[in-house]
Structures are given as C-alpha cells and as structure tokens.
C-alpha cells in the first residue's frame, strides 16, 4: 500500500531522513514513533506528496509521489500536527468544501458529508460554526475533513496532541473503526500508550534513520517485507500470578517444560505456543504440579515492549560498531 525506498530528505541545515526504507501493508495501522527531530513529520509530508524528497522513491497505492503528486493527494487523507479550520464556516460547509475539493461529485456530496460527520460523531453539530467547537470537536472535524472522500490511506501526525482523556478515548475508538473498515493508517505520536489501543505495527525513527528491523508488529516480530508471505506467530506470552512465593520456581517450570520469559514480583511470564489449547495445557500442568496459581492471563504484547526491543537492538548494534574499530 505504501512503499518507501531509500528516502533522503535534506533541510538546509541538516539531513532529516537518511535513506529510509519500509513497506506498510494494506489494512495496517502503523505507529510512527521517535523523539522530536527524528524526522516523523518530514516522512509523513513526503508520503503525502507535500514535500519533494532529495532522493528516493515513495509510492502510495502504486502512485509515485513525484510523478503523480496530485493522484496521491486525491488518494490519501492527511492531518498534520498543526492544522487549521475555517472558523467562519459551519461544520457542514467545511465538509462540503472538503468533499468537493477532493473530487466528490455534487450529487454524492450530501451523503459523504453525513457519513463523515457520523463517523466522527458530529452529526448533531453540522450547523455549528467551526470556530465555536471545543478542541476535541475541532480535532474530530479536522479528521472528518480528511476522510470525507473515503481515502484508503490516512496519515495522522500527532492526532492526540492536546486532547483530554475523553477526547483521546474517542479518537482511539474512531481509529479502530477506520481500521476495521480496511483503511491503512499511519499515526505518529510521542506517547506510546495512546497508540497501544489501535496500532498493529510500529516503525521507529531516530535521527532520520529507521531503528531496528524496520516495521515490526506490536508483538515484536518483524513485519511482512516486500513480496514476503506472512509468517506464523512463534510464541505467545502469559502472566502466571502465584498466591505465595515459590521456591526454586525457575527449576520447577523447566521441569514442566515451560519456557520462562522473565520473572516479576509474585509472577512469572511464560512463553507458550499460541492458542487456547497450549494455554489450557500449561495451566493444568502448573496446577497439577501443586504450584499456588492465583492468576493466569495471556499478555497482549505492548507497543512499549516493541519499542524497548527495537531500542535495545539499536543500543546493541551501536555498542558493537563502537567496539569494532578498537578490536
């Protein structure tokens, strides 16, 4: 769906992107993470065909951003981190303008406007002026404007910035519903936990370079590369909580043929073959061995885990490369 290959972008003062390459598959919700100055916004603007890269190729839905920028503009929705609205227009007028300027025909515009307003929960505010909306509602209107023409790709740059917890929760629900409709999304944020709810993959940038293995799934595995078949998940994690301290826990788990991921206070994180059957077998083995199990819950791998993993790999790589010349 989105293919970025050897992307280089220069500002007069410095190089913002150093040969960035990755692929985002159709239907994915990619979290684009990295510290300030990592190049996230620049990367998004290049994907949106708003800035011309110094080198490299970006294709969106098969359209090259430099060969057919207007085709890309029409095919995507993009919400920059700093956006504006026409405060003197009503919500309905904003959406009509957005729809018709993005090629929606006059005949289908009313339906597109109502659909977009319903998606973001603004159906009852259509005649309110944009300038009279609260920050959360403005954010919803801005998103509605980006999806009123039913794009297949949506780019959201720091969409939750400045929103209160309720508005963030609404935003998460909206992004989940868009993903459920099959839309491909790239969402950037500084706050990993807010991406947790809806992102299926993650790409970490630092100093204009991709960190680690490129696009990784939120379970830490490498995502599908160009022309690769999807790989089966290798393991699942479960947290086992014990009612009382267990002596020699590691040895007892090993005796049960259960592989330990790590120990936490009063609990153990185990690696299992994915699936309910393996979980049931593990639980009965633990109970049969007389271990005081008080809790047993599968763990959904978090984005923070993936981030830590990628960061740790980068640190390891840096250490290796630093030591290389000395050795």
């Amino acid at each position: 769906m989105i293919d970025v290959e050897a992307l280089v972008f220069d500002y007069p003062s410095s190089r913002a992107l150093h040969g960035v390459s990755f692929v985002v598959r159709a239907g994915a919700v990619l979290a684009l993470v990295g510290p300030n100055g990592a190049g996230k916004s620049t990367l998004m603007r290049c994907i949106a065909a708003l800035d011309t890269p110094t080198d490299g190729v970006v294709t969106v839905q098969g359209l090259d951003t430099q060969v057919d920028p207007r085709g890309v503009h029409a095919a995507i929705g993009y919400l920059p981190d700093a956006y504006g609205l026409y405060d003197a227009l009503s919500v309905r007028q904003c959406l009509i303008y957005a729809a018709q300027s993005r090629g929606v025909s006059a005949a289908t515009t009313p339906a597109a406007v109502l659909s977009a307003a319903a998606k973001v929960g603004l159906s009852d505010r259509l005649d309110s002026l944009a300038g009279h909306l609260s920050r959360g509602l403005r954010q919803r209107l801005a998103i509605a404007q980006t999806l009123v023409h039913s794009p297949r790709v949506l780019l959201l740059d720091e969409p939750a910035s400045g929103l209160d917890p309720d508005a963030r929760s609404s935003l998460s629900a909206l992004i989940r519903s868009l993903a459920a409709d099959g839309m491909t999304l790239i969402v950037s944020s500084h706050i990993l936990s807010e991406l947790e709810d809806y992102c299926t993959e993650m790409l970490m940038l630092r100093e204009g370079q991709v960190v680690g293995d490129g696009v990784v799934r939120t379970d830490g595995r490498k995502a599908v590369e160009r022309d690769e078949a999807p790989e089966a998940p290798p393991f699942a994690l479960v947290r086992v909580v014990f009612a009382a301290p267990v002596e020699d826990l590691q040895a007892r788990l090993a005796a049960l043929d259960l592989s330990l991921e790590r120990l936490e206070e009063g609990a153990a994180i185990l690696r299992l073959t994915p699936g309910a059957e393996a979980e049931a077998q593990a639980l009965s083995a633990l109970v049969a061995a007389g271990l005081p199990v008080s809790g047993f819950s599968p763990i959904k791998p978090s984005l923070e885990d993936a981030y830590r993993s990628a960061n740790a790999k980068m640190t390891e790589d840096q250490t290796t490369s630093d030591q290389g010349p000395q050795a």
Partner: protein
Amino acid sequence: MNPELRRHLWLDAQPRRLIIGWAGLAGLFLVVWLIDRGRDPHAFVFAGGLAFVIGALIWSPREARAAVTDEVHARTWDFQRLSALSAWSMTWGKLVGSAARPWAFAAPGLLIAALQLASISSVSHALFWVLTALGLGVFMQASGLAVGLIEIRKSRAVGKPPGLRSAGLWIVTLCLLVLGAAVWVHTHAVWTIHIQTGTLTASGQPLIWWGGRYEPVRFAAVSLIAAAVLGVGWAWRLMRLELQLRNFPWAWALFVALAALYVAGFDPPADSDASVLEHRLTFAGAALSALAYLGALIEPADRVRARQFIDAVLSVRPDRIVWTAPLIAEPTALAILVLVWDAGVRAGDMGRPSALMTLAGLAFLLRDLGVIAALRFGPRGRSDATVIISLILLYVVGAAAGSLFAGAHGQALFIPSLDPPGLSGLAGLVEAALVWTYALWRIGRPAKAPLRPPSFQAPTEKTAPASGEAAVAHSEPIDLARPTGADPL
C-alpha cells in the same frame, strides 16, 4: 461551481459585507456630487474611476495575495494543497473568489464612469477605457496572487511564515506607475486632448515598434492586456509549483526571450547617436538584466535545490541542469550573449570606450547577482529590502569612498565608468568572481542554526534517556517528546 470559488463566496460575499461596500460607493458619489453640483460632466467619470482604482487596483490585489498567505497563517494551506483541484481551478477560483467584494465595489464604479463617458464622448471610447481598466485590474489581481505565492515559497525555504505586508505589491504598483508616467510623457499633448474631448485622435508623436507606427495609448492598452494574460499564466505556473507539479522549464526561457524582443522593438529617437541595432541590443540587454535581477530576488533561497543544481553542473547532467536551473540562469546567459554582441557592434561603430562601458555594465550585473545570492543564501537569509539597500549602498558609498581615496580610478572600482577605460569592467569581474566564490561557499555550507525551530520542552535530567539507550520500564507512559540529545530539525 468551483469549490474554491464557493468557499470564498461563503466567507466574503455575505450580504452585510456587500451592503457596507455599496454604501461606501454611494457615499463617494454623493460627496463628488455635493462638491461638483453637476458643473463638470467628468465628475462622475472621476468618481467611478476612483472607485475602480480603490476596489480593483488597491484592494483586490491585496485580497488575492491574502487568498494564499492567510491560508498559511491559518494553517489551512496544506489542506488546500492536498485537494484534487487542478492548478487552474485553484488559480481562477482564488482570483475570482478573492475579488468578489473588491469588484462588487469597483465594478459599479467602472460601469457608472463608462456610461457617463459614453454619454459625453462615444461608446467606442468608453468601451476602450473599460477594456483597458479590466486589463489593468486583472493584471494587478493576478500579480497579487503571484506575489502571495512567491512569498509563501520564499518563506518556506527559510522556515518562516510570510510577512503581513507585501513589498512585492508595492513594487508591481510602482512599475505600473512608471509605465503610466512613460506613456504620459510620450503622449502628453495627445493625452490632454483626450481628457478634454474624449476622443482618441492621435496628434502627437506615434510610437514606432519594430518599424510599425502605433498610437501610444492604444499600444500601452494592448500591452497591458497582454500583460494581464501573462500575469494570470504566471500565477497559474506558481500555483502548479505549490501543488507539487513540475513546470516545463523552457516556458521561463521563452518568456525571457519574448520580453527582450518586446523591449528591443522600440525604435531609437531620431536624434540618437546609436544605430538601430545598437539601440535594440542595448534595450534587450537592459531588459534581460532587469529580469536577472528580478529572478534573483523572487526565487526562494532554497539551498538544497541550489546544491542539486551545482551537483548537476559538476556532474554534467543536462537533464538535471535544466530541471534545477535557477531563474537567473536564462536571463543572465542571454544578457551575456546580447551585451557582448552589443559591445562588439559598438566597438566597430562608436569606438572602444562605448564597448568597454557596455562590458563594464555586464561585469557589474554579474557582481550584483553574486551579492544578492551571498546575502539571500547566507545563514540568516537576508530580506529583499536589506538586499536592495545593500546594493544601493555598494554603489553609492563604494563610489564615494573610492573617489575619496583614489579619485576617478577609485570610483571606477564600484560603478561602471570610463575613467580610465577598462578598469571598471576588470574590477567588476574580479568582484563578481570573489562574491560568487563566497556565495557558493555559503550555499554549500550547513546553516549555523536549524532553520526549523526546535519545539517542545527543555531537557530534564530526571527523565531524559541518553540517545540510543533503551527506555526502561516504568509505570508512566513512554513520552518520546523527552529530549534524547538528537538535533532538532
């Protein structure tokens, strides 16, 4: 309806705003009637003309400029750039939409003035002036939009928002006033008769252009209408660039060549010492030089693109050279050709000093372009006003200082001069070489400070993970906005 036009009409053409404009127009005519009391039949022509000047020539270009610069300030410009509208739809939607209110004020004024003029002279005469006024209005409106687009491109290149005031519009207005004054001077007697009798019978000197004899006012009017068409085309090409479309690079070269041919077409006065060829070459050289200065000032100071051009030249890649060539390339190359040719002709006809003076002018053109590049591509990206003032100071203060310390020889180092012959040209070339070397070094060198302002909070030791260090597990969410030591862009 064009969505961009409709959006403008929603925002600007509200009944209350239009009624206020029409009330102002009625007030203007009322004041003129109270002063004149129907004594002069031209009073309403004057009042209508004044309304047209205010609405179409002063107000409307500013609205056209604001149609893009205000979008940048309101952070809606990227949203518009992402639309599916063609560059042409966006251009005319903005031109017509932004003109709605000013022209609602100007058009009735123009209509009343035309009707009054027709009643006291002739319909054809009134139609001529209406057509001329419309050409002038469209030219100014298109110039306003073009100036706005140039400003946002230039401001983006240096990471700053466009200014609230526009020097570009003042310069366009000034150029038009100079052109109008030139026409008036050329046809002063005829012009007076026109106002008094309302006829276009030419009785003064005709204008000779490429051998043809033309009535000056008609010639200026036709030129103006052609300029209006070119102005709209100019705005459209700039809009294409904003929408990330690539412009055919030869169009600018074609315009430069046509402009040189247009200016070269004016025949020399009967008492001129220069031959027709010398006169044409000098005029063409002056026009090309003016376009080179214009190109140097209006092009964004984009060092990345400039580096790409330099790389293309060094690696001898003609396709890349053509696509990345700066605006000054074509007019400067043509100016060199034309002025060297002019110097050769002058050396044969008028002697060596005249040829050396022409070459000195060329050398100082090259130096000035280098000065503009060095200042605009410098670490702080000097403003146009600073660049122009610096050039003026270089000529005035440099010549004065040179004269003070070394007399005429010293003065010749800073302005084209024939005392002694050849020194000016040589000095200009040396200065051009030095200043261009400095400018190229500036272009290739990274800026001292990031041109995009760093954002977010200052570093805090407590929460700042070192760059490359894995974030440790903690109960609060990981906030990547915390500093990492990475350079902000």
